[in-house]
């Protein structure tokens, strides 16, 4: 479904991603693991077009979208949940969802009602200004907002970062449910516990390049790799 081929991405003059290639197949949850500053967010920003790569190819459902604008990528069915939440703070929860709503042809029918059924906690606070919500509530809202665009592929950038264990558990359950509806997920994480339990396959990124790829079980068995690239 998604294919990255030899991406080189820069912030200004600093070269961040080196020759990153990845593949995500329909229906999978693929995890991109890496330490602080490894380049996970930059990879995701390259895919959604907020920091387009200088060279390399981003291909989605067989179409080269490397030079396409962000909003057009979203309309193709890629949704983005950023690492720092970024709810539209001046708007209420409900307004956040409404302005993100989009009709699509792909047969997904997310509307505010369905998001509230998916995250019942959001229904209680739908008239509250989203800037005033707790971290967990904001994270549910950013995921709900992403779902409102009716995606086929969801890019999740460290959804559990800084959240209480109970909230992390709830989010993990809901992400698994999303996979069961057929949604494909690319999950960037530092937290191995949650991500390995959710994912089918893993890529490990370090210093801007992919250092390892394999199934979750292979990685679990490979203590040396985990020691080398991840904090255990």
């Amino acid at each position, binding site marked *: 479904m998604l294919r990255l081929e030899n991406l080189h991405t820069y912030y200004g003059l600093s070269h961040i991603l080196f020759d990153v290639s990845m593949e995500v197949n329909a229906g999978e949850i693929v995890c991109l693991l890496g330490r602080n500053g490894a380049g996970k967010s930059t990879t995701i920003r390259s895919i959604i077009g907020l920091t387009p790569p200088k060279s390399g190819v981003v291909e989605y459902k067989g179409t080269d979208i490397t030079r396409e604008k962000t*909003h057009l990528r979203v309309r193709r069915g890629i949704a983005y949940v950023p690492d720092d939440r970024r709810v539209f703070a*001046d708007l209420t929860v409900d307004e956040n969802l409404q302005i993100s709503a989009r009709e699509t042809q792909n047969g997904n029918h997310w509307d505010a009602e369905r998001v509230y059924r998916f995250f019942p906690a959001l229904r209680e606070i739908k008239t509250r200004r989203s800037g005033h919500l707790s971290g967990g509530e904001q994270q549910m809202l950013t995921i709900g907002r992403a779902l409102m665009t009716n995606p086929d592929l969801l890019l999740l950038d460290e959804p559990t970062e800084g959240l209480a264990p109970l909230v992390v558990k709830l989010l993990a359950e809901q992400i698994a449910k999303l996979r069961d509806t057929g949604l494909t997920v690319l999950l960037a994480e530092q937290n191995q516990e949650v991500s390995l339990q959710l994912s089918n396959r893993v890529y490990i990124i370090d210093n801007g390049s992919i250092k390892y790829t394999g199934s979750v079980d292979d990685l679990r068995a490979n203590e040396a790799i985990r020691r080398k690239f991840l904090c255990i």
Partner: protein
Amino acid sequence: MDLLPNISLAAFCQQLLVGLSRTTILFIVASGLSLVLGVLRIPNVAHGSLYMIGAFLAYTIASAAGGGTFGFWLALVLAPLGVALISLAVERGLFCRLYEREHLMLLLFTFAFTLVFGDLVKLVWGSDFRSMNAPTSLQGSFDVLGFPFPKYNLFLLIIGPIVALGLWWLTNKTKIGKIAKAAAVDREMVAAVGINVSWVFASVFVIGCFLAGLGGALVAPTQNITQGMDHGIIIETFLIVIIGGLGNIWGALLGALIFGLTDAIGILIFPQFAIVFPYVAVITVLMLRPKGLLKSVW
């Protein structure tokens, strides 16, 4: 009851009404400026030029329609739309490529446009001043406590709240208004939910400039339409936007009230120094609240 020995209550009330009608014009123009500043982050110095073009266009349209009542109403509708059209061309042709530049660049760029628009007005309308009449139904005056109060000013007092209400509805009740609020703070994330931010910006810019044109068309029957009428208004409206809180439309309303009323009342109390009163008010506000009266979006 006399406020000062030689000022009657009636004269005071009359000046108050005059100040409020001035406030209407200032508010309409300043709210457009504030909208563009708040959402697009462009300090659009050419906003005053669009106000001037609005006034000249109103004159031309009204005369072409044979003056009179019909001409006035036609001008009131078409002149702001004409200004909106000009601004759409400028935004799509030039500004939309420059949003990523720093503010100083944008400031210089819009300043260049004040010169271009100034020369265009000179080319099209020449350097003579023009004047146009209010429709007969709005000419003459009412009696307010024994003083005459022009009907046209009363008309302005009705228009002001209508525009304010319209803006409130636009920013709080419509999807484009909510999107604009979100884009003002985080344009990247707005794009990342599939919204074409470029068109959101174009719409907001055009609405803001429409308000400049509307202000120009509304002011046209009350004064001479001249070259250079852009200078005064741009300084005044910038000050209003600054004391109100950058990008805050209600701040623009508050700022316009302060500016319009101190101006009108100042004339009554100290005619020789009238011109300084609004500026003293601005300085006072800024000393007390350097970031403006209401929440600034910057």
